[in-house]
Every structure is written in C-alpha cells, then in structure tokens.
C-alpha cells in the first residue's frame, strides 16, 4: 500500500493503462501542456508525447464526438471534460452517439471509451459550476456511470473503465481530488457494477456515493456514539447498479437511508429507494428515507450553499428517523 491523493490515483490509472495499451490516448482542454485543469494529467505529456496526450480547443461537442468516432475506429479514447458542467454541451455526442452506436448498428460498432472529469458540487462557484448530473447520464441505456469516493477506488475503477468495451461516464469529485488514501501497490482492477461495504453495521443501511460516502461514514461514527450501528454502502458504479449488495444489507438492517448530493427530483436516490421497495419490501421495517441536495440552483452565499447540500447532521437525523429514534 502507498499513500496518495485521489488525483494521483487517477493519474496512475491512466499512465498504467496507456503504457499497457497504445490505443489509449487522453484528450481534452488543458490536459497536456498545462497538466490538466485539476492536474489529474500531471506529467503525462512528458511521458507519452503530444500524439497521445492532446490539448483541444474549447469545443466539448466536437472533441466528445471525436472520441466516439475514434473508438468506433478501434482506438480507446479517454476524453476529459474540465468539469461535467461543460459536458452538457456535448450531451448530443454522449447520449445520442456514444450510448447508442452499438445498438443502432446492431452490435457492429463498439464504443470503448471513457468520458471523465470533475463532477459534483464545488465550493462557492455558483449555480453553473456546482451541480451533480449523474442521474441524467445514468438514465441512458448504453452508458455506464462510475463515481469513485476514495483514491483506491478511483484507481481501480478508472482502470476497469478504460478496459471496458462500452462507453463509460466517469465522474470524479472536484472536492475529493486532494484526499489522501491507501492505494494497493500491485496492479488491481475493481470491476464495474460491484458495490463496496465501507462500514459494517446492523441497525440501518446508508447508501451513498461519491463525496457523500465520506459524509455517510462521518454520520455513522456519530450514530455509533448514539448506539446506532449504520452499515455504509458505496455503489461505486451508479449504472450498472449493484442492487444485490444493497438488498442484502437491507435484509440485515431492515432500514435504509439513501444519500446523494444531486437534486431530489428523479434523482439516484429515487431509483435506489424504488428498487429497495420493489425487491426488498418485506425486509423493510420503515420507509426508505432520502437525503438529497435541495431542488434549487446552487447559491453562492456560503450559508445558503451549505443549506443546499446534504449535511452529516441531516444523514444522522434521517438514520434516527428510519430507526424510529428521532
């Protein structure tokens, strides 16, 4: 094990995969000479040269589509969006092209590529630069959606995403980039579609992804002090969703809280709680509770911003309600 940041783990994943397979290249705004807006691609231009680490103009739609075509023609592109906020400009290529080429071509064309970049809310940057859009993308059949919550997962999942033969939407967390964690030294891959139990517990299941996993773990510590043992599950991939791990946990705890940073309406939490209801109804002793971002554009003012986001206190409260102890 070595200690490294989430950003370094992502960098290692790309470097290892590019060394392994010369069809893999990285393209995006500022990825090469500037070393990446968030420095995720630090040093990669030096290692691989300008043919494989390529700076683009500010044309998200264009270079996202370039990735689709290049993947169809046999390469394995990693397309970096500076943040997912700007990937909205490229939605046509992600949703209409990447996700559906395999289907529309009757299986003739694969699109083995990764769209990656910073997602989730950032700090004090206002409504256009601070939002979670994973539910939009997870809604689309043909896309896989991956969201790691710590450095080790970031590395293992990104390597799996690069090797995957389908288009993968890989959403990193802007605020987690500097987080430090233990990462195995040996090469390892975390298969997509496998959730991780981040903390075992018997009283209530808390499902949380990306940055919210950390919030859920903090909440679980507080709950433990209050005599409630929470099990924290990080799905790690939103689509395909490992519902078996979630359902097994609910069968044990009989209670569930689903946490997400994104908006409540038609969010990931809505999907997960519906699945628990559909397949785990008999195991439930209380309704599933959702803790979500508020259904508002992200405010700039610090106090309002904090209110718009889920908090550890809200998760603690929700777990208590689920356990009938509020």
């Amino acid at each position, binding site marked *: 094990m070595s200690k490294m940041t989430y950003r370094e783990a992502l960098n290692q994943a790309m470097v290892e995969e590019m060394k392994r397979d010369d069809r893999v290249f990285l393209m995006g705004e500022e990825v090469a000479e500037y070393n990446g807006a968030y420095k995720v691609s630090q040093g990669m231009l030096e290692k691989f040269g300008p043919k494989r680490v390529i700076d683009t103009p500010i044309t998200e739609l264009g270079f996202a*589509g370039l990735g689709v075509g290049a993947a169809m023609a046999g390469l394995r592109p990693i397309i970096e969006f500076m943040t997912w906020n700007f990937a909205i400009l490229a939605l046509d290529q992600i949703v209409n092209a990447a996700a559906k080429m395999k289907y529309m071509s009757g299986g003739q064309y694969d699109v083995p590529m990764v769209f990656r970049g910073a997602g989730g809310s950032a700090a004090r940057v206002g409504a256009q630069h601070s939002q979670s859009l994973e539910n939009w993308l997870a809604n689309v059949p043909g896309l896989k959606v991956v969201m790691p919550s710590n450095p080790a997962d970031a590395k293992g999942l990104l390597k799996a995403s690069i090797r995957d033969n389908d288009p993968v939407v890989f959403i990193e967390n802007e605020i987690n980039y500097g987080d430090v964690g233990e990462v195995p030294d040996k090469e390892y891959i975390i298969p997509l579609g496998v959730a991780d139990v981040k903390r075992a517990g018997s009283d209530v299941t808390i499902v949380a992804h990306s940055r919210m996993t950390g919030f859920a773990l903090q909440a679980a510590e507080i709950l433990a002090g209050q005599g409630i043992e929470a099990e924290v599950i990080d799905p790690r991939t939103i689509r395909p969703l490992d519902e078996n791990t979630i359902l097994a946990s609910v069968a044990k705890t009989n209670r569930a809280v689903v946490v997400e940073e994104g908006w409540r309406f038609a969010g990931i939490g809505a999907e997960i709680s519906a699945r628990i209801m559909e397949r785990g109804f008999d195991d439930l002793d209380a309704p599933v509770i959702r803790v979500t971002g508020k259904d508002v554009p992200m405010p700039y003012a610090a106090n309002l911003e904090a209110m718009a986001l889920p908090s550890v206190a809200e998760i603690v409260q929700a777990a208590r309600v689920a356990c009938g102890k509020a």
Partner: protein
Amino acid sequence: MSAKQKSEAGITHDGLFFPQERLHEIHDQMLFIRRFEEKAGQLYGLKKIGGFCHLCNGQEAVCVGLHQASEPTDYMMTSYRDHGHILARGSDPTAVMAELLGRSGGIVKGKGGSMHMFDIDRNFAGGNGIVGEQVPVGLGFGFSSWYKDDGRVTICIMGDGGINQGAVYESFNMAALWKLPIVFVVENNQYAMGTSLDRASAETHLFKRGISFKIPGMKIDGMDVLEFEKKMREAMEHARSGKGPMLVEAITYRYRGHSMSDPATYRTRAEVDEWRSGRDPIARLQAQMIDAGLATEEHFKQKDKDIKQQVAAIAKDAEAQPEPDVSELWTDIYNDPIENAYPYPGKVN
C-alpha cells in the same frame, strides 16, 4: 477494331478516362438506387416501412461518385438520408431492404430502420439521425487514421441544413488544426426540410464555409457523375496526401419531399421539373454513353426492366423474413450485460 482499341472504349471526361465497363457499373449503381428508393417509397405507402423514410432520388450521382472515388478501406458516414450511400458502398441490398421493413435480416438486425444503417465490413458508420451529429464522429475516424497512420480517408457527409450546426465548425477547426485526412461533403440539395438554402444560410456558397479554418473548398456539379467523381478524386488525393481536410459542396436536388410525409409544397413544379428532366444524372449518363457509342437506348430499357425485377425480388425476400426475435430487445446495449440488470416485470427471457 483491334483488341487494344476495344479495351480502350470509354469516355474521357476532363482528362479522366472512364472505361466502358466502369461506365456501365456506375450507371447500373445509380439506376439500382433510383429503383430501390422508388420501391421503398411504395412500401412506405403500403405502411410496410414505418417511421421516417428519407429517399435520395435525384442525388444518386453523389452517392455513386463518392463511392467510386474512394477505397473500400476509407471510412464513410452520413445522416439519416443513408440508403443510397450504403447501397453504393456495396452493402447487401436485401439486408438494407429488410432493415427498412424491420426484419430479422436487416443490416442492423431491425434495430435502426431507415435512418440508422451501418456496415462495419464496408467501413460505413451510419446512418445518424441528429442533424450534424455525424460530423464530430467523422472527425474521430479521421483522427484514428492520423493516430494509426493507416492511409485511410474519412468521407463525412452532411446536408446544406446540417452544415449550419456548431458541431460542424468545431470539427472543421480541429480537422484543419491537426491536418486530419477527412473530406467533408455537403450534399446541397437546396432544402433542409422546408427551408430553402437562402432562408437558412447567410453564406450560400457552402464550399466557402471552411475558409476561416483554411480548409479549401470545391463546388461540384452533383448531377454529373463523371464530373463529380473526377473532382472528388482530387479532394480524396488532397486529404490522403497529408494536406489536411477538404470541403466539397455537391450541388444536387432531391426529387421527393424531405421524407415520405412531406408533400414538398414549398417548391414549384417548374423548379422540380427543371432538375428532374433537365439535369437528371442517370439520363445524362445514358445520353453520354449513347453518344459515345457505348450502349444503346434498347440496352438501357432492358437494364431498367432487369433492375426493377431485381428490386421487386429483393423486396419480396426481405418481406418474407420474420421480425427480429424478441430476445433482441435486450442485446447490443452493453458488451457484458450484468446479471440481474433487468429483473423487472416484462423481462423477456
């Protein structure tokens, strides 16, 4: 006539020699596409073909000229008006017809329909329904050739309406910046649905649209197949030799409405007639070949009969196919479908 002279029978157009057999091939391909589209129109009228169905009657010279000027290894992609292009490319016409009819033997298993035809063996990458979407995808194919240095050229086709999409200019910029081997082809058939070129475009000379990206442009008569092929070869040569992209504007016309549901009342009869009888690419080539003593009117009459019969048989074969197996609903979405990914009521096993 000596054997040597005989083998040299043909037409020289602007310095490019077209031997007799190839002229026949070109002619037959155009006529086949014409009759195929007519049959498709008929089957649509009978409600056997559903959804949108965009025919390319009138534009056959562009379809065939592009194909003749390119190598089988070159990549090609276009919009939803794709039947003519995939047929010219040499794909199995029965599979194309079966696709239109939503049958199991469809070229994409009945999953695409009229707008989404693909043939990976012929490097034909769609068949794309969002106006302009195929252009960044074409950029990517061109990029792959640059990356792999495989000597291929990408032919990326769009309409006179599609060229106004922002994605096109993003692609022009990158293609020129990195000198990618791409020929962008605009099929200027004068209308985007009901909107004439001059009502949608500030600069109607579309071949000039690449100027600010330093992409050279060429305007070609798309109703003259020999002229089209000749110039298109020059464009392909430019791209293949590493000089970067080229923009080709093919002046053409669609005889039918935008799609089968469009009666095209926005055009005058006189205008349509002027193109149909005055400039038709098939009639024109026939006249040239007869003039050059390479074929007779009789030959073409007989050919037309044969092709009509051939197309009728293809339609019959395609129609006789079953619809796709219901299990196909769940295939071709992911390479490795996750167990339990579809545990819902309604799952087809």
